[in-house]
């Protein structure tokens, strides 16, 4: 472990201790800010009793389904718009306009369409993940070294070959950066989607805890969601590193 990592870990301990001391000294109500040990206890019993696991599973499934669906559709649309000039020019103003639409605000409408439960949350998550992939795929496909383009022309490569063997691999760093953004948004999408229309899942459980004024449980859920996010994000970065290990060093992480 490097010394900076040790310091980072030490900082975490300092923060936890400071939090604990703050709760003790001010005697603040557990309803406002629960003590760290109480949170840890609730977290542990939630995990040990098996109460939290179904919710973790539901939220993870929604997040991954939405992420996969949104990335796949966003990527495909990005490739089509990147390859067909006419469509790109026709649709670009709408793509830009739809960027600023607050997608989560469509949640209530999706509940009308798809009902309460997983489907509407997956759709919201997919919609949120769609845009970074669309935009980054489109950008990645346009950013080709003109010399490499000439090389492929010189070698008589077909359009399909140029796409598959030049544009996609050389745009991969930009496309994967879009995936990274989508991963972060997917967790927000899944949790907030559950706030609006979930029966199960970590977001729905937060709303339930809020109904019971159980701040300690809300804090515990907050930590579970954070861990989930870190795990998926680290996994994405590991995959990205692996895929880009031969690309330009400046473009890789």
């Amino acid at each position: 472990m490097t010394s900076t990592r040790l310091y980072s870990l030490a900082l975490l301990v300092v923060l936890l201790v400071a939090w604990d001391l703050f709760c003790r000294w001010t005697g603040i109500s557990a309803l406002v800010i629960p003590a760290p040990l109480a949170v840890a206890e609730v977290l542990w019993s939630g995990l040990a009793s098996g109460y939290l696991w179904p919710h973790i599973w539901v939220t993870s499934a929604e997040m991954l389904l939405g992420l996969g669906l949104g990335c796949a559709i966003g990527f495909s649309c990005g490739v089509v718009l990147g390859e067909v000039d006419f469509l790109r020019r026709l649709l670009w103003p709408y793509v830009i306009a739809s960027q600023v639409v607050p997608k989560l605000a469509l949640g209530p409408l999706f509940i009308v369409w798809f009902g309460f439960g997983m489907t509407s949350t997956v759709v919201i998550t997919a919609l949120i993940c769609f845009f970074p992939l669309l935009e980054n795929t489109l950008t990645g496909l346009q950013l080709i070294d003109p010399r490499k383009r000439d090389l492929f022309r010189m070698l008589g490569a077909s359009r399909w070959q140029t796409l598959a063997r030049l544009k996609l691999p050389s745009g991969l760093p930009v496309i994967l950066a879009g995936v990274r953004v989508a991963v972060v948004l997917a967790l927000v999408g899944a949790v907030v989607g559950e706030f609006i229309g979930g029966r199960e899942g970590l977001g729905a459980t937060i709303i339930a805890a809020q109904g019971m004024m159980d701040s300690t449980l809300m804090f515990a859920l907050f930590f579970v969601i954070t861990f989930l996010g870190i795990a998926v994000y680290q996994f994405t970065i590991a995959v990205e590193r692996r895929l880009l290990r031969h690309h330009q060093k400046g473009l890789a992480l």
Partner: protein
Amino acid sequence: MNFLDIAGISYAYGDEASVVDAVDWDIPTGAFHCLVGRSGCGKTTLLKLAAGLLVPSAGRVRIDGRPVDGPRPDVGFVFQAPTLLEWRPVLENVLLPISLRGAVSAEDRARAGELLHLLGIGDLEARYPLELSGGQQSRVAIARALIGGPDLLLMDEPFAALDAMTREELQADLLDLVAARTTTVLFVTHDIAEAVFLADRVAVMEAGAIRARLEVPIARPRAAELRHDARFNALCLDARQAMRAPLAA
């Protein structure tokens, strides 16, 4: 018989002034011609016109008697930078021209390996481009241009970014390789000594036009010691004066 036959070609980017202006040039089959000129005088543009990557606004280009209407498989092009695919290993980069045309056979692989061996990087075929030095990358680019057995090789300052020692090694290797195959070569450089060492004939370009042509009547094969020969230096001086002439006038 002229393999490359350029007659009165001109080219302008957009509405700007002509970058290549009424250039005539013939290269006999198997000859090695060099084009020297200052940066920005239109050398790359002329090479792209010869390759069919650009279409001339006037004049015509013939290769092997046939008019050029686009890039052709029997022409190899080496770009100013190695232009390798960073995500493919060296051997796959060399085989790219073949794999774009169809399946790669075991013989193709053997030939690629042999080319890399001749260029002195036979043991690097599994490496990736970013794990190579600049000189090694240039060698890979040359191997890629030669793998299809081109009859015409167009080279755009391929050694410009290399140190003097590496450049001299590559010049010697290139001469060996093209001599073995009677490849016709048009080689662009801004280095006069490089041009004189490589070429049968050197053309000096300025502001889009060929200002002077200079025969190099030195026998082949040419050894590295030639660079210290009085005749060689006299030819370099001639070429340099041809480049300076309009400024002195």
